[in-house]
C-alpha cells in the first residue's frame, strides 16, 4: 500500500491532493522551485525538496530531478496533478522503470490518447462517435482538398501534432480552402516540425461537455456523469457546472456508456475525462481524452459524492473500484468558478503580485480550493489560477444564487483578479437560462464588462471614506496641523446652527 506520495505539482492542486493524502494517513512530499519556497504546498507537506530555478522547465518539468527526489525521500508513488508532467508518457514510463507508482494511466494509454489522430482512430474502432472528418493525417494538398469537399464546409483544419490553437484554421468559404490549408501546414511545420494535418467538420454553436471516468487495474470502468464546460475565453474554461443544463437523461446515459467504452479501448487505469463536443441538436462527438485529474473535478465530487483523489490512490494501490455504476447518481447541482490573478480591464493579462488581504467565502454549500494566503506573492512563472470556488445547490437556480453570494464574500486585495467578471457571468441572461455555447463569453462581452453602479449614496460613502483615510494618513505624517479637526464634536451644534443661519 502507498505510504508516501510525492506530489509533482504546485498551487491549488498540490494542496488539494495533499489534503486527501493526509485524510488517508499518507505522508506527502512537496517539490518546489526557487519562486515557491513560501508556497502553500511546501508548507502543507510533511517533506519538501527544492528542485531548481523558477521556470517550470528547470523545476516542475525536470523529470530526472523529481524521480531522484522520489527515490531519496522513499516515496512509493508520484501524483502528477494536472498540467506539468501529468500527461507525459515518458515520465509515466520512467516512474515504472524506477519502481515508483505513477498515479495515472500507463504510458500506452497516455500515448494513445495524447496524439489526436491515434486517439480518433482508437475511438472510431471502439464505436465512439467522432466529429466527421478524415480518418487520419493527410500530407498532400490535393488529398486535403478532396476531403474537405466530402465533409462539406465549414471545416476545421488541425495540425496532427498540434495544440494551443497553433496550426489550426477554420474554413467557411470555398475560396479560402487553399490559403488556409497552406497557412495551417506552414505553421505546423515551424511549430512542431511536422506539417501533417487532419480535417474535421466544424461544429457551430458547440457545447463542451465532458464525462469523468474511473478505471481500476482489474478492467472495471465506471463513469461519474458529465460536466458542462462551455463557458470559455480563448479556450480557457472559466465556469463549469454539473449536471449540464442541456443534456437529457437518455443522451447522458448514452454518452456515459461511450465514455466507458473509450476508456476500455485503451485499457485505461485511474481517473480520466472524455471530452465531447455537442451541437445544438445534442449530436455529440468524441473530442479528446484527458488522461489525468481535471481542474474542474470538484463539481463531480460534490454532485456524485466521491473524493476523486482518494479513488486515484485506491486504484494505484491495485484495489478494485469501491463503487459500481448503479450506486452512482447526480444529486443537486454544482458550479465552479475559476478565480484568476488577471486584469479583465487590461486584456485579461495575468497579474501576479503580493496578496495583501484575502477573505475566503464560506458557509452553507461552499467549497474553496486555493493556495494563496495573506502576504503570499503569486509568482509570475506559473498558471494564474489562484482559487476555485465551488458551490452546491439543491437545483441549478439555488447553485447560481449561492455562487453569486459567495463571489460577493470573496475578497482578494493586492492582485487584480476576475471576481467581478465572474459575477457578471452569473448574472448574464444566457447563463441564467442555461442557454450558452462556447461562444458565450465572446457574444456577451459587453454585458460582462459592464459595471453596475452602486448608487449615489454609495458613491458619497466612498468619497468620504477615502477622504478620511487620507486625512488620517496625513495626520500620522504631520500630527500637529490636523489635530484641530478632531475632538470638536462639542462644537457640532454650534457649527450646525451657524450653517442654518
Amino acid at each position, binding site marked *: 500500500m502507498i505510504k508516501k506520495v510525492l506530489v509533482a505539482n504546485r498551487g491549488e492542486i498540490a494542496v488539494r491532493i495533499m489534503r486527501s493524502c493526509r485524510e488517508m494517513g499518507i505522508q506527502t512530499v512537496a517539490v518546489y522551485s526557487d519562486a515557491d519556497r513560501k508556497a502553500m504546498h511546501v508548507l502543507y507537506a510533511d517533506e519538501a525538496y527544492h528542485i531548481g530555478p523558477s521556470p517550470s522547465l528547470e523545476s516542475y518539468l525536470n523529470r530526472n530531478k523529481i524521480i531522484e527526489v522520489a527515490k531519496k525521500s522513499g516515496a512509493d508513488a508520484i501524483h502528477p496533478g494536472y498540467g506539468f508532467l501529468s500527461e507525459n508518457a515518458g515520465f509515466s514510463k520512467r516512474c515504472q522503470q524506477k519502481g515508483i507508482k505513477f498515479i495515472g494511466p500507463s504510458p500506452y494509454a497516455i500515448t494513445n490518447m495524447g496524439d489526436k489522430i491515434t486517439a480518433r482512430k482508437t475511438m472510431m474502432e471502439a464505436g465512439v462517435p467522432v466529429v466527421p472528418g478524415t480518418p487520419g493525417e493527410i500530407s498532400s494538398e490535393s488529398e486535403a482538398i478532396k476531403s474537405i469537399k466530402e465533409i462539406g464546409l465549414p471545416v476545421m483544419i488541425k495540425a496532427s501534432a498540434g495544440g494551443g490553437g497553433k496550426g489550426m484554421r477554420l474554413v467557411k468559404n470555398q475560396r479560402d480552402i487553399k490559403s488556409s490549408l497552406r497557412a495551417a501546414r506552414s505553421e505546423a511545420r515551424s511549430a512542431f516540425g511536422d506539417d501533417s494535418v487532419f480535417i474535421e467538420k466544424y461544429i457551430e454553436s458547440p457545447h463542451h461537455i465532458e464525462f469523468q471516468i474511473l478505471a481500476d487495474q482489474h478492467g472495471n470502468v465506471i463513469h461519474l456523469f458529465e460536466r458542462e464546460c462551455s463557458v470559455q475565453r480563448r479556450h480557457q474554461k472559466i465556469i463549469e457546472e454539473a449536471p449540464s443544463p442541456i443534456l437529457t437523461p437518455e443522451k447522458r446515459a448514452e454518452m456515459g456508456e461511450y465514455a466507458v467504452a473509450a476508456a476500455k479501448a485503451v485499457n485505461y487505469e485511474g481517473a480520466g475525462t472524455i471530452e465531447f463536443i455537442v451541437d445544438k441538436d445534442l449530436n455529440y462527438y468524441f473530442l479528446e481524452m484527458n488522461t489525468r485529474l481535471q481542474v474542474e473535478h470538484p463539481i463531480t465530487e460534490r454532485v456524485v459524492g466521491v473524493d476523486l483523489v482518494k479513488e486515484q490512490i485506491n486504484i494505484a494501490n491495485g484495489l478494485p473500484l469501491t463503487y459500481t455504476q448503479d450506486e452512482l447518481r447526480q444529486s443537486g447541482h454544482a458550479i465552479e468558478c475559476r478565480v484568476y490573478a488577471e486584469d479583465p480591464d487590461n486584456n485579461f493579462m495575468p497579474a501576479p503580485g503580493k496578496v495583501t488581504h484575502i477573505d475566503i467565502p464560506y458557509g452553507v454549500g461552499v467549497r474553496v480550493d486555493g493556495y494563496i494566503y495573506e502576504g503570499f506573492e503569486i509568482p509570475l512563472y506559473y498558471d494564474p489560477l489562484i482559487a476555485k470556488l465551488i458551490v452546491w445547490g439543491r437545483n441549478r437556480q439555488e447553485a447560481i444564487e449561492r455562487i453569486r453570494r459567495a463571489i460577493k464574500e470573496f475578497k482578494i486585495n493586492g492582485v487584480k483578479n476576475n471576481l467581478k467578471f465572474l459575477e457578471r457571468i452569473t448574472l448574464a441572461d444566457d447563463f441564467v437560462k442555461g442557454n450558452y455555447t462556447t461562444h458565450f463569453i465572446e457574444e456577451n462581452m459587453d454585458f460582462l464588462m459592464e459595471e453596475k453602479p452602486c448608487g449615489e449614496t454609495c458613491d458619497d460613502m466612498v468619497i468620504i471614506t477615502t477622504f478620511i483615510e*487620507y486625512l488620517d494618513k496625513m495626520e500620522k505624517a504631520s500630527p500637529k496641523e490636523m489635530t484641530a479637526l478632531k475632538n470638536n464634536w462639542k462644537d457640532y451644534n454650534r457649527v450646525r446652527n451657524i450653517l442654518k443661519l
Partner: protein
Amino acid sequence: MPFEVKLNDRIAKVELLSRQDNKLLVALDGKEFELDFVKVSEGSYSVIYQNRSFNIELIPVSGVKKYLVNTLKTTYEVEIIDAESKYLASRNKALDDDGDNVIKAPIPGKVVKVFVEKGDKVEAGQTVIIISAMKMESEFKAKKAGTIADVKVSDGQTVEARQPLVVIEFDKQE
C-alpha cells in the same frame, strides 16, 4: 478646510466638520452627513449611514492620494486632489497619449501571434498582437486608429516585462 475628491468624472468638495470616536459629521458638496465610521482592519472600513451598512475597502494605488476602492458592488478609482495633483494632471495632459501608442508586455510572456506589419493601417479596437503569459492568452488592441510604426517582436518570441512590442502612430484628430 475643504478638499476635492475625484471619483470617476465627479469632483466633490468634502470637509470634515467634526469627529468624536466613530461619529463623523462631514459636508459633501454642501450636504451634511452624520456617519458611524469604524476601521475594521487595515484599509477596510465599515460605514453606517442612515442605518445602511457599507463595507468599503481602500487599496492605495500610488502614495496616499490615489486609491482603488471596492464596495460590495463596484470598484472605483478615487483620487484626492490638491495643488500638487492638479499640477501633475495638467502636465500629464500635455504629454497626452505617451505610452498609449506603444504596446508593451505587462509581465514576462511569449508572443503567440502578431497580426500587423510595419506600415499597416489599423482601426481603433483592432487586435494587434496576442501575448501568452502564465499560460493565459491576452489580446492587445489599438486604442485609436493609426498606422503601425514599428513591430519589434515576432511570433513565438519570449518577451520581458515592459518590453515594447508594437508602436502605432495614431492618426491626427480633427
